[in-house]
């Protein structure tokens, strides 16, 4: 019998809204995810990180005291640690360009705008599970490659000259 990858996942959900946490957890369970850990903000998520060792993180953006941006930044700062490479899906109602760009520049893997739909969540999950973007480490950025398209680029293309590790 073939298994679904969802049956082998551990997901960490971070959201200050109890309804949103419940919704995301229920949808993940409907997909077959057996281990869903919940945190109410970035601080609690950080505490949970080593216990749950998630394969994917779903986080809200605006939370107090520790918001999703800060949490994502801390996560990406874990150099030399597998947890630092974990896909982060930011689920947020703040869909203005500044917020999306901030998320991108912190190293968030995917951005999912609220209100979510079953399809949008499912598609983002497939994206991070099966079509990972290569990771880039520079002194000022650590996260998935922000160039999604393989289009001609005006500037020095450093990808060709750097060995993949």
């Amino acid at each position, binding site marked *: 019998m073939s298994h679904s990858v969802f049956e082998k996942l551990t997901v960490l959900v971070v959201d200050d809204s109890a309804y949103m946490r419940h919704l995301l957890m229920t949808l993940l369970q409907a997909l077959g995810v057996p281990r869903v850990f919940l945190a109410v903000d970035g601080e609690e998520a950080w505490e949970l990180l080593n216990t749950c060792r998630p394969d994917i993180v779903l986080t809200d953006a605006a939370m107090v005291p520790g918001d999703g941006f800060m949490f994502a930044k801390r996560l990406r700062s874990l150099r030399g640690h597998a947890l630092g490479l974990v896909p982060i899906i930011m689920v947020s109602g703040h869909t203005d360009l500044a917020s999306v760009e901030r998320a991108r520049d912190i190293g968030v893997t995917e951005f999912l705008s609220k209100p979510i739909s079953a399809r949008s969540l499912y598609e983002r999950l497939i994206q991070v599970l099966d079509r990972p973007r290569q990771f880039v480490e520079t002194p000022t950025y650590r996260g998935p490659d922000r160039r999604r398209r393989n289009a001609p680029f005006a500037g020095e293309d450093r990808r060709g000259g750097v060995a993949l*590790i």
Partner: protein
Amino acid sequence: MPERRTPSRLGGQDRNGDDTPPDVRFIRVPSIAERKLGREYVAPMRLDPRVLDQMQETIRGLETKYAEALKSQVSMLQILVEPACKGDTEARGRLYSLAHDMRGLAGTFGHPMVGRFADSLCGYLENCESEGWKDGTVIVFHVDAIRDAIENPKTDAAVTMETLDALERLIEASRRDRRKRG
């Protein structure tokens, strides 16, 4: 043709100005699906319509419960408006938090217009200084629109869009007023 995109705010900061190549490393990240499934992995992973149906069924199962919660949240909004506009910071925080919850959830559970009105209210409050709270007109009208959208979910879409436009005009007028007053 060169790729057109919004430059990253970090763009260029990793260059040090001379010809030394910057310290850049690329790491090939393995597919989680491939790693977890091993020999059972079949590429590429595709959306399974049966699973999607199951997820949508899950959302439908939560709709009734959410509709009840939404009603009590709107009642709470109506209670909070007055103290919030009189300067009660706790009431302001709770009012924003409720509107923020509605913005994020109402659309998922079949109340898209509630979500739109809540989004408009949140946008207003996020850019609102104390003066804006004191003139509670914009907030009251938004709360009324949210209540109407819940009580009359089958209202003609054109009417609700007109209400949304009217709220946007009200916000703009309120901004102009505040600017005039300095």
